[in-house]
């Protein structure tokens, strides 16, 4: 066990865990930030995606000791009030079903938009193609990313 200081959603947190502990479980079990999900543990599904200094990263394969000074952003920190254009678009397109995969989808989509404000279908495929949604919300995800890019988020 060792002490680590993590900056999560702008707040510093001290945790006392083994250095090899995946960030996923530190967020969920030590910090109670359960919005980041466990789906596979082996970088296959994307449910655990968070941002490290703005970069979408799979927290299930990111050891806490490797985070260093990088700032962690989780779904809870994407916006203070569901006002991120993607969150608005997610509502407008009625994307989530069970909702379990959506934290990861949103975090990856947020990085995509920050890098490519007007993504093509191919860009969306390349970015979100490594995520899994068992409820099959893919068609709506694609529409919602385009909607957010066009900044048409908001009421349907």
């Amino acid at each position, binding site marked *: *066990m060792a002490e680590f200081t993590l900056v999560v959603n702008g707040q510093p947190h001290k945790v006392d*865990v*083994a250095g090899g*502990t*995946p960030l996923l*479980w530190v967020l*969920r*079990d*030590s910090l*109670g*930030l*359960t*919005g*980041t*999900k*466990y*789906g*596979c*543990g*082996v970088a*296959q*599904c994307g*449910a655990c995606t968070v941002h490290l200094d703005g970069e979408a990263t799979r927290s299930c394969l990111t050891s806490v000791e490797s985070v260093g000074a990088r700032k962690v952003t*989780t*779904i*809870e920190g*994407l*916006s203070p009030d*569901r006002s991120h254009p993607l*969150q608005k678009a*997610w*509502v407008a397109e*009625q*994307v*989530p*079903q*069970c*909702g*379990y*995969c*959506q*934290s990861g989808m*949103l975090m990856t989509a947020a990085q995509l938009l920050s890098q490519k404000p007007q993504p093509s279908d191919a860009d*969306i*495929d390349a970015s*979100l*193609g*490594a*995520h*899994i*949604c*068992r*409820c*099959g*919300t*893919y*068609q*709506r995800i*694609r529409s919602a990313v385009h909607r957010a890019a066009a900044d048409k988020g908001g009421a*349907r």
Partner: protein
Amino acid sequence: MKRRSFVQASATVGLGLVVGFRFEALLAQEAAKPALPNPFDAWIRIDAAGDVTLVCGKSEMGQGIHTALTQILADEVEVDWARVRVEQAPTNGAFYDHGTGGSSSVRGSYKTLRQAAATARTQLVATAAEQWKAPVSECRAERGEIVHAPTGRRLGYGALAAPAALRPLPDPATVVLKDAKDFRIIGQSIPRNDIPAKIDGSARFGLDVRVPGMLFAVIARCPTFGGALKSFDAAKAKASPGVVAVVEVPPGPKGSFAPGGVAVVAKSTWQAIQGRNALAVQWNPGPHAAESDATLRKSFEQLTSAPATAFRSDGDAAAALASAAVKVEATYELPFQAHASMEPLNATVDVRADRAEAWLATQDPKWAQDLIMEVTGLKAEAVTVHTTYMGGGFGRRASADYIVEGAQVSQLVKAPVQVVWTREDDMQHGSYRPAAMHRFSAALDAAGKPVAWLDRMSSVSISRQWDDPAKVKPWASEIDGAVNLPYAIPNLRMEYADAPSGVPRMWWRSVEHSINGFAVESFVDELAAAARVDPLAFRLALLAEPRLVKSPNDPDGTPLDTKRLKACLELAASKAGWGEPLPAGRARGLACHFSFLSYAAQVAEVSLVNGAPRVHRIVAAVDCGRAINPDGVAAQVESSVVYALSAALKGSISIAKGAVEQSNFHDFEVLRLPEMPRVEVHIVASDTVPTGIGEPGLPPVASAVGNALFALTGKRVRRLPIRASDLA
């Protein structure tokens, strides 16, 4: 006949008007159930603020049920949408509640929920009329208020709730349901009420439950089905950081299918997983250790090669086959399938000496409660189950093995415990969609009309594993969708034999329809090809004469209406441009199917990309009666299409040495976003009672795709998942 009263008011100071009712009292099987200690399992509560809450046990797993139910409530009770909400009722000794599955929530409760809501509305009208000393006939409900028409006086529901609770409820005969033409909320694509919590991380799933003092556990289970613990050495696991206990877990109560094993309990999930990695454990592999896909296939081949129990026999299929002008024979095979919900299984349970509390992502909180009672010896009043959101259910969460484990481990370590299944556990210790085989023989006359149809089916029966062997009906969840063949064929015989297997199985989205929809609709397509008739025209001709087809599994149930199936097929075909030219390298195929009292037809558009099948477009038509929320209906069909495409094109579960070979999403692949076809959903306008929609969009998918691939390549898809080698 006196109608059983299932609606009743109760007054609780401070709560306002509460109307209790039986949620699904009108379902045939409900009527047959024995009397219950408390007659209610759902309540409508109107509080002093005029807010209306539906308290019920229906669980939300992504199907949008909390939205659909509140739409029905808001409309019938006559308030604006913003005024209604759902409260998930805990399961405790006080009432009986239902599982969520079988695409039954709306169809089962549509009448009763409306009746109860109309009762509440009628009560509020009567209360206002009394206060105004006006005749009831001059008062009406309007958006959360009662209006006295002649004077324009108004009283809000909030002000009326408390006095309304003190009056006896109106005579059911005086309760009048709204006319459908006055619906304002039913039939609208209202945004779902669970979505805001699902975009900011605040929705609480089973795995997100946090209880003071809780521990986390993972369990080592015997890799071969039916095996048992031989011995284990806990020393290294106990020395692993954070591990607080390593305990032997016995097999669960009969019928729970909890296999037992060794639980490693720690202060965090990761520590528990690490502890289990350090555990040394040996197993007795048990009686099924030699089972494999090959042994099962051999059983299926034997069982479908000899006559078996017939469930439908019209005319004389054997004679008609013997004298056939053209005989067509084909065998279809389907593998086990995993549910693989995105949220792995888990259970958080706190067993104390005198009570237990559980937080569960479950489709069946009542069964969960029963099993926790059985494990702990506690009475119903002492066991409370809180149902959380589910990260997918698809039938897997109608099982309770994982729940039993939660209760067992909490009891053993005397602390609240969250038993977590890793994805590998979830993949390898599932309750799978059965593997199955259909062996068909059909006869066409000289004009190409089918005159005989013999279907010998074998599968690994779901019921067989849990029913009392003396009363077992192995076919109960196996033959629908095959036995009630909608097509007019004069000589017809459908047989079924169940195959032995140690693999646990359970309802998987659309249950047997996922199997039978593929086999039947593919084979019908083969007959059309043999007759050299367009597949749409071939089906329409066999559906031309309107008929009602019953299933022997549900002889008193609503039969299949061929008119509605035909209309669906025609709608899908016309929206898809059936018969119109396509670019080179593309082809269409179609299929239709009746399940959960709803009708579905689909046209798939496919091509080959580097020899592998690629689905570009699915045009779906559904008739699910009145659509409560059309966008929700579309979402369920989109979802069913993706789930079916994963099974048609991607992963499956294979068995070797009595164990599952797959372990995670790298070897159990599912459809991902780049492969998502365009899905267009068309809803047949209907004012009949709503029917199922969570599942009926699934069964036609694989056959529509396979039939399209046949049109493209001339190769018939007879097994799933579709392999490129089968098309070469």
